């Protein structure tokens, strides 16, 4: 067995750690044993299916269009996931999908435009996956936060509108606060990287036997990519959602948790 292949035996061996988690749950009567087992089994099935599918997509003889098709499916699924996690946010499915599409287009254009990575199936799929995965969480957070801020501060927003401000001006302080809230965790995790934890891509490369400094440069490029992606996605959601909750004649629509 080399560094990159743990084999089926290794996979079964790593399952011992799941057994430890189940044992702890039983000991402390957390009633989480079934959930832990279900989550572990589900992850195994999902990832194995993805692995076999990726093997076909990433095959050096396969057309790169299969990779792009994979990305399209990921975008659709991400839009659906954002929609299901933030049901109170009006039009979030469409906005989430547009946001993910924007993230992929902008980020991959930069990455491939500057030849940071070559345009191949083995780069397109994992890079898009990392961008979408990280942006998805931030999109849900910013959507919920904007709706929360505008409904909680409805009095203030309407007082601003009543003074003749446009919806853009009246909503700006609250949308800005929501965008900051969504972006700060990503900035903090970017700051802490290397000191507190070693990120996944770098760890994977080191385990695969790549030189540590080479692994770091790849990881840095990915981290910048993720930071840019998260910033892009929350901005798209922020601007799009704010436009949706106001009417063209500068009135605040009735939104979730609104009180008046």
């Amino acid at each position, binding site marked *: 067995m080399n560094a990159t292949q743990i084999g089926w035996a290794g996979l079964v061996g790593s399952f011992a750690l799941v057994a430890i988690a189940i044992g702890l749950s039983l000991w402390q009567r957390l009633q989480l044993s079934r959930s832990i087992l279900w989550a572990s089994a589900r992850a195994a099935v999902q990832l194995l299916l993805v692995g076999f599918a990726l093997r076909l997509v990433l095959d050096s003889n396969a057309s790169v269009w299969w990779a792009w098709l994979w990305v399209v499916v990921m975008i659709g699924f991400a839009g659906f996931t954002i929609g299901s996690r933030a049901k109170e946010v009006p039009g979030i499915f469409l906005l989430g999908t547009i946001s993910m599409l924007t993230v992929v287009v902008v980020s991959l254009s930069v990455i491939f435009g500057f030849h940071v990575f070559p345009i191949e199936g083995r780069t397109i799929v994992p890079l898009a996956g990392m961008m979408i995965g990280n942006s998805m969480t931030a999109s849900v957070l910013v959507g919920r936060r904007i709706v929360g801020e505008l409904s909680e501060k409805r*009095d*203030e927003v*309407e*007082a*601003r*509108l*009543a*003074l*003749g*401000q*446009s919806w853009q001006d009246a909503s700006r*302080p609250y949308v800005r606060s929501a965008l900051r809230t969504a972006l700060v965790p990503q900035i903090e995790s970017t700051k802490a990287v290397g000191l507190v934890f070693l990120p996944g891509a770098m760890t994977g490369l080191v385990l695969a036997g790549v030189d540590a400094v080479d692994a770091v440069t790849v990881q840095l490029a990915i981290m910048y990519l993720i930071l840019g992606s998260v910033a892009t996605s929350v901005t798209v959601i922020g601007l799009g959602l704010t436009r949706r909750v106001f009417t063209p*004649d*500068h*009135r*605040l629509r009735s939104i979730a948790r609104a009180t008046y």
Partner: protein
Amino acid sequence: MSPARIPAENAELLAFEGVSFAVDADREILHGVSLSVAPAAVTVLAGPSGAGKSTLLRLGNRLELPSAGSVRFRGEDSAVIDPRELRRRVGMVFQKPVPFAGSVRENLKVGAPQASDEELIRSLERVGLEGSLLDRVADDLSGGEAQRMCIARTLLTQPEVILMDEPTSALDHENRLGIERLAKELAQEGIGILWVSHDLAQVRRIADHAVVLIDGRNASDEETAAFLEQGMSEEEQ
């Protein structure tokens, strides 16, 4: 206030003409309400809680649109006026003071971004506050001070009408009387005031005209008389 901004005759500044408002298809809150606001006068909109008074005010500032009827500003349908311009000419003061985060100066500048400190101080003095409050954090103001600051903020947009939605309900007696005096003074300067109240003692103190709403419609003469009489007998008790 420039005399040119006030019509030569006692024309209606703001008029609600057969205005209805429905929250949804099954729930209508206002049913064909009509009333007008004259310049240089305090018009009080009275009525029991839930009569639709606050909703009517929101229609005047176009925070809501009527489902039927029209709101006219200086004879023009407000639906065709740019809402931002309309709201600057038809200002609104809410039931509870709504100070924004930041200093008093920052609050006042929302109403008039280009105003100089001198103009801001004059606006504070106009509502009975000291100019030294300019650098105070708005959230630190007392209830009465905050409501006065909100009025000053509205005045900076140079409104011709001010809609006041029970602006003294969260204040103590002394502050209540102070805001009432201020409304009368503003009316004397030519501004048309539409003041919502369900406090009948207050109605008698400030009203040049009074309109009573009951269950979302204009009260009949008999209902108006009965409502005012009931209020008087409650006060006597």
